Every structure is written in C-alpha cells, then in structure tokens.
C-alpha cells in the first residue's frame, strides 16, 4: 500500500481511534465523516473516540494461502472481532491455536508489526488480537 495512504490513518490504526456521532451517540470505527443513520444531521458532529481495545470473536478462519507479504506467518488465524463499543474489525488473532478459537471468546487488541515493504523498507504497524484470558 502506498505510504501516504497508510500514513493518513496511522492514528486510527495505532491507537484504535474511531468517532462518536454526537447526534445519536453511535460509535464508528474506522472513522466516518458522517453517520450513516443521521447523515446530514451528523455532519461536523462526529467526534474522536478511542476504543477500549477489548472485544469478542464473531467469526474466524485459518489462512493457509496468504498474500505474499504475510507468507512468513502462514498459516495464521484471522478473525472478525466485535469490540465492546459494538463496532467490528478484522484482524489477526495471535497466541492461540485455531482449534481453540470459538465464537464469543474474549480478546484484547495490541499494536503489532503488520508488515514491511522490504528489509530496509517502511514497517507497517496496526492492531492484532490475543485471547484475554491468556494474558492475565
């Protein structure tokens, strides 16, 4: 991905910053300029909201044929996580075997390296998830 395209969203990716619609109170991540429900009523009323970082597994898979930049990690577990605020995201689920993953499992987000353009190239960071219980 082109550097500016990644850079534009660094804060959201690194810190899990979404937005709250001050018209209806709904939280969104990634950030949206207008609330899809309130539309024009929400314009310029979307304020930053930092996600707490905890959530649960909605669905998951184990990827055996990744894109080239993720080959070193293959096979790995991907999941859709519902954050406690109700928003959903897609990310790696680490430190757990696929066979042990199940819907509803509590997880926590952490910033990790996602990839690198080349050995000396730009490193991409972003959130990954790991089971909450294992970390206590």
């Amino acid at each position, binding site marked *: 991905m082109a550097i500016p*395209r990644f850079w534009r*969203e660094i804060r959201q990716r690194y810190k899990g910053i979404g937005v709250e619609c001050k018209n209806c109170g709904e939280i969104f991540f990634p950030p949206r300029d207008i609330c899809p429900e309130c539309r024009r009523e929400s314009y310029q009323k979307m304020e930053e909201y930092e996600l707490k970082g905890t959530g649960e597994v909605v669905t998951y898979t*184990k*990827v*055996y044929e990744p894109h080239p930049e993720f080959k070193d*990690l293959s096979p790995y577990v991907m999941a859709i*996580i519902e954050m406690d605020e109700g928003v*959903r995201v*897609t990310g790696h689920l680490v430190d757990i075997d696929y066979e042990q993953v199940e819907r509803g499992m509590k997880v926590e987000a952490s910033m990790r390296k996602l990839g690198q353009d080349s050995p000396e190239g730009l490193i991409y960071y972003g959130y990954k998830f790991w089971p909450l219980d294992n970390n206590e």
Partner: protein
Amino acid sequence: MRDVVIIGIGETEFGELWDKSLREIGIEAGLKALQDGGVRGEEVDRMYIGNMSAGKLIDQEHVAPLIADYAGLSHIPSTRVESGGASGGMALSEAYKTVASGMDDIVVVGGAEKMTDVGEEEAKKILSSTADQEWEIVFGATFDSLYAMMARYHMDEYGTTREQLAEVAVKNHSNASKNPMAQFPRETNKDFVMGAPMVSEPLGMFDCAPLSDGGAALVLCPAERADEFEGQPVEIVSMGEGGDTIAVHEREDIGTLKATKRAAKKAYERADITAEDIDFAEVHDNFTITEIMAIEDLGFFDKGEGGPATEEGRTRLNSEISINTSGGLKAKGRPVGAVGISQAVEAVEQLREDAGDRQVEDPEYGLTHNMGGTGASAVVHIFRRWS
C-alpha cells in the same frame, strides 16, 4: 419502459486461454452473439463491457473502445462497467435500461476477463482488491478468508457442514461435465473435494472457483423488433440491484447476503412473480458457501436450509430447482467480468431449450444472480421463455 429481449448469445470457452488476448476473447464472444442473433455490425447502436480489472491484470484500461475498435465498430459508443465480480451483471443492467428506456435499440453487452497473464498470487491479490483494502486486506485477510469467515459464521449459526459445502462442488462439477464450454467439464466426488488442501478454514481448494480467462456476449433489442432478427428471443422480464457494506465485518448478520436479498426483492416485484415461480437459477458460486447463502437469500430455501437442501439433492438438475446448470463459477469457470453475461447465456440456452444434456425440463422462468466483492454489490435478472 419497453419490453426487452435477448436475440443473440455467444461465449468463448472458459479456462487458461494462453493463446488468446483480452481483445480476441471479447471479439470472439461478440461476433458469435451477433451471428447467433442474425444482427449486422452496422445495426449496433451501443456496447457495454463488464470487466473487473484489466488495468491490473493486463495493464490496459479503456477496454470497451478497444474491443469495439477491433470488432470494426470504432464509431459506436462503448463503455466499461465495473462492479467487482458483478461487473458483467451490472453491464447487462445498463444495457437493459438503455433499451427499455428507448434510448437505443440494438445494444451489445459483453463481459471479458483475462486473468492468467499474471501469476496466481498476483491474480488473487487483484481479486482481493474488491474487498476493503485499508481495513480488511492490509490486516492479513485474503478474499478467500473473508468468505471462509462467512462460512464459519453460517456453520455456527445454522449448523451448515463441510459435507454440505462439498455437495455444492460435486453438483456443479456434474453439471459442468455436460457443458462443452466449461473449464472443468468433469465429475468429482465428496471425498475428493473434502480431501483437497485447505485454503482458508473451512474452505479447501475445491470450495473455491478457479481463475479463468473467457468472455461472453449478448445482443439486446426491444421486444417489438424481435421478429426482425433470426435469433430466437428470450425475454428479460426484470432486473434488480442491491448494495451492502464493502467490509464483511460491518455486517450485523455475516451469514446473509443483504445486497442479494435487496436485488432479488426488486427483481421479483418488478416481474410480479415470487421465488417459487423460478425453474432454474445461475447463482454466484465463487465459493461453495456463497451458493448456499445465495439460494437462501434469493428465497428458494429458508435461511439455514441451503446446506441441507443441497445435501438432499434438491438443487440438482431437474430436481426441485436446478441451480447452476452451467457448472457455475466453480466448474464452468470464473473470468470475473464475464460471469454475469455468461450466466445470462446459460439462461437463454435453457429457455430456448437448447442446453443439450443439461436441459431443464420445460422451463418458463430463469434467474441469474451476480455478486461483487464479498457481497457489497449484487444484481439479479429474471428471464422468461418467449412466446
């Protein structure tokens, strides 16, 4: 709005067509369609081409005028329509609207994709660009894995099994074995499908449609002019389109294809019929799970019944409803931009009772369902036998 018929159909073989370029594929399909319809090039008013990603796959944008030019029709307006995997179906929608509105009379609509000039890894990466690059793919998701997560959700929610997914592949390969244009015209069996290497749990290699080259084309005209041409007409009764979120994770119910439901609802309403009136359907089986979700969301079976219905053989050729008689994307092949048009070609062959060994008995209504990305766009067409 005028009634619209298809008077000509044409398609290339689907597969790894090393010796054919995109323009050759497009022209072959288009010329066959004009020939079938008995339409001369100078009668054509306009052309649409469904194509997903010629820019990335063969470094060529602006492919509609390119194909028109090499077909000897450089003077007509031609436009490419892109909607991911639904590019072909959406191109047909544009053509249908153009003729129905009275804007133009004779419209050629084609679909073509050349996927094997790049390597498999590259082609799969390009396919994944129809999902959300910035919030799905950059985090490690692949196109396959997004469908795999829909499959897992559907399994958890409704008890759908891997065996039931495998039956989709077995059925579609069986249908393709009766289709001379198919990429994989041979039977397979459940053990073989389930024993194939995993791509993304729970989907194995045989749960996924292949990468293909190929093209298909149709000639449309107003029903009132159908008699002027040689081709046996088939009526396009209605069309419906629908949308959904670009990212799978944004969907409240990950086991439902909402764009498909929305498109189907409109198409049924406009045709003034219900799902029960449909005799056969070509549905977007880019993965086995997609066919199971599609036959539910198109209203052929209740939610959660898609898997059991498939396993019980209720979607086989000349059973309760014949699904993917062509072999579908799974076994006929998946030249992405051509899919929606190729589905319509099958519908016309069936309604002309011209489908040979895979003929549905005495069909009146056929439906095609074409989907883009992980389901963010969908388009449904309903066809009727001409009388």
